[in-house]
């Protein structure tokens, strides 16, 4: 179940939208944050607070690829491998993540610290290669720089 702060947050979100259904997307983000991923419990919590049938909530969530549809690590690395990044060595960086952290695309480290997602262009072609860690953006990546960045996340 959600804690009271999260329930308040959902109700707050609900009040900004004309109908309960229109509040689903931001509400699902809150549940995802609270439960770590979009488990059945997460959708049930959203359904209960917003008063939207749970299958509808899950149907909306399941449409979007950027939600977490399976359990993931505490921090999500989203690495771009589109053209610019690829030319400037993104695939080498992916290999580095595999050899140093045991991270394969779509996988999670054994300690649950990181998950790796290969993502499409994030608009940083001029400063490639680039990635997101959680909501933070990093550019001009190198192996050494990645090691420095990831050290900040526990």
């Amino acid at each position, binding site marked *: 179940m959600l804690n009271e702060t999260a329930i308040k947050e959902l109700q707050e979100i609900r009040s900004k939208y004309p109908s309960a259904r229109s509040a689903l997307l931001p509400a699902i983000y809150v549940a995802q944050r609270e439960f770590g991923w979009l488990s059945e419990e997460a959708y049930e919590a959203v359904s209960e607070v917003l008063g*939207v*049938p749970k*299958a*509808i909530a899950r*149907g909306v969530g*399941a*449409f979007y690829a950027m939600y977490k549809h399976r359990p993931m690590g505490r921090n999500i690395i989203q690495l771009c491998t589109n053209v610019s990044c690829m030319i400037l060595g993104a695939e080498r960086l992916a290999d580095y993540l595999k050899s140093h952290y045991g991270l394969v695309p779509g996988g999670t480290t054994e300690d649950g610290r990181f998950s790796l997602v290969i993502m499409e262009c994030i608009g940083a072609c001029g400063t490639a290669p680039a990635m997101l860690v959680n909501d933070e953006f990093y550019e001009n990546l190198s192996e050494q720089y990645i090691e420095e960045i990831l050290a900040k996340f526990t």
Partner: protein
Amino acid sequence: MITVTINEKEITLEKPITVLEAARSAGISIPTLCYHPALERYGGCRLCLVEVEKMPRLQTACTLMTADGMIVRTETDAIAGVRRGILEFLLINHPLDCPYCDKAGECELQDLVEKYGPTTGRFKEKKRKMPESLEDAIIVRNMERCIVCTRCVRMCEGVQGASAIAVMERGGHSHIEPFSGGKYDCEYCGNCISVCPVGAIMSRMHRHSYRPWQMTDQVETICPYCGVGCTVTAQVRDDAIKRIIPKLGSPVNNGLLCSRGRFGYEFVGNRDRLTRPLIRKNGVLEESTWEEAIHRVTQKLGEIKEKYGSSSVAGIASPRCTNEDNYVFQKFMRVTIGTHNIDSTARTGYAGAQQFIENIFGQGATANIISGISRSDVVFVVGGDPTTVNPILGLQIRACSRKGGAVLTLGKVSGLRYFSPHALDPASFTETVLLEGIVTELKNRKELSGSHSSLESNIKDIAVSVEDVIKECKIREDDFHSFITLLSEASNPVLIIGKEIIQSNGASYKLLLLSAINYLINGRIYLLSERANEQGLLDMGCASDLLPGSRPVEVAELRRRYERAWHVTLPDKPGLTLFEMIHGAKEGSVRAMYVMGENPLFNLPNSENVKEALGNLDFLVVQDLFMTETAESADVVLPALSWAEKEGTFTNMERRIQKLRKVISRAGKEDWRIISDVSGNMGVSFPYDSAEDVFAEISKVSPLHRDLTYDDIEEGEALWPFKGEPLRGGMEISCNKGDGATESGKYFLAIDRPLFHSGTLSRKSSALMRLCPEAVARISSTTAAELSVTDGDSIRISTRIGSLSLPVFIDEAYDGSLIKVSNNFRGKGVFSLMEYSLDPVLKSPCMDNVIIEIEKSDRHVQRDPKNDSEVKK
């Protein structure tokens, strides 16, 4: 006027409709897949694309509205190419496993590909793999066959209102799934099965046991379960019902069914059906012949009548039997036996409530059209969950809400939780105060018009202040005021009354208050009815105080009509009501009882008391389909034909008389024929060869059914007030406020009326037993926490008269200190625990104040329906 030209044919239309509808009305066919007349328009499959002059690109005919002067072409080379292309796309992932698929033969995709489609596909990629899901007990999902037309989702969400399934993921990965992936956990209406154009969502019942074209017969009849009276089509192969499907355009249910109606037919072919008459010899029921059994009944009833008088014999009629059965039965009791001792379980609520309301507003006050509910602007629900008692009526309430109407409920109604933002949930036993408060406020706002003096004189002194209501009922003042505003400003309101309020203490006074509310807001009343022919049996005179056509027994002028028709003199006082019969049997004034299609030993509160009473009888005859609890203690048991095996009529709760048609044949006799045989043997022969003959007499004798024929009924002209003469209302009102005493207990027992069961019939239907295999105690999560129990634990519930150990079911959509137990399973019925007092006016039992003791008992082992003797066939 709009004139459109489709394929050079000019079509004139009264009002704008879609191009598709216009074309079909003119006999021009346009292929569709996602379109379904019962569903919201979608425009998703693109098969209905047509060319419209002056419009760029092809247009979807199912969404495009006609406009004057429009010129449309539906069969051009370009369109044919597009159709072929779309079908080729649809077949990219479709497995084409038609030889193995149950849908083959009635598959819309198969038909379309055969007619328009490419014979070969050009795609070399592998088809997507999604294993068939057999996780659910009833519904099998095969998402490889799914074409994502979303008809099922639109049905589930937009019509059924259950919202149990949705499209998950997107693009090529799109598939339909219930919330938790495999099991449905829904209302199991199966309406998704009806609308699926391919074999993606299907019933598991009789899976792979038939092909659609192998059905030998298909018969339109009326559902045997609740009082809504849905039209069902039974499809038959080798004299066995293979499936029940709905029919679009049918008057009550218009293409929809509920779980009981669709999946509950298997009792008909259950191997436990009684086949031969049984006679008790040396204490044991033994098989015998019809001749011997009827002789025994005749002889014993004759003896008892001779020795103790006519009034020592009593009859219990059946709301599961047809009008014809019930008419003949009451005639047998009145003419052959010579007593008005005929009653039924309608006495447990429906009969008394209806008579009370009709005394005020006139006969037929509750005969309102069910489909009108969705067109009203305010629906006020009191005393139960219409979505489980009368599911198809419940859908009308949901539809009303969807169209912008307000749903008001007294107490929380689980089936309307996504539809009822206006619930007043008064503290236990304070409904009366709340209703008085509502009447007071409505009087303040609406003024009494003076048009109904007797009702007004009864309510003019009611005055309960808002403060008192708020304090006593523990509700919020804002909620109360918005409730009153919605009620008083409603232009076309309806009031739906369920048994929970009729079976509560002071029920007649509460009904007076509800009638007053109805009068003040100028609404229409609907009385929920649990049995298919509860209304019909009352109209047939199966009530101790009413003759056919619902004419009171005591009025000599009215009685004379029947005396002339039947050539007898009838007693001038009403007979014994159901509960008086039980009492009479217990104390010895009733010596013999004839029970037709009813199970009083199980279906009446305080079963132990009923058992004792029936045990005290000199002679008990039971006519039924199964060896019920009551039949087990009978002296003679007569096997009857079921609903599917006979002709006749049912009258539904809106008082629509509908025709039952024989679906399959079986050796045996209809209930009316058995009774005719007994009567003939007793020296009073009844001149009937068929159910139609019986109805012909009904239409002569009953002033309500005057001149009505089977032909009229077939043509759908048997709607209230038929061709007859209803009695006026405005009679003197007497009501009883109840003693107001409520015992203080922590937990109270209440009757659960589940969606999947009705009792005697449903527990002999394997699909319903799979959906709900055993009795449970439904409790709120608060109660669960207090008792420290979780799902799977058992509790022992004890009252002064008995105790039951039941697994708990924690219902999240429900709160409070009520413990709800259903009355459906043998040996586990709530009525075995229920004490009652009788409402002096309605003569129905009040059962809302039953205190219980609860203790945690051993952990429950789930019963396996596969090894259940009640389910096996």
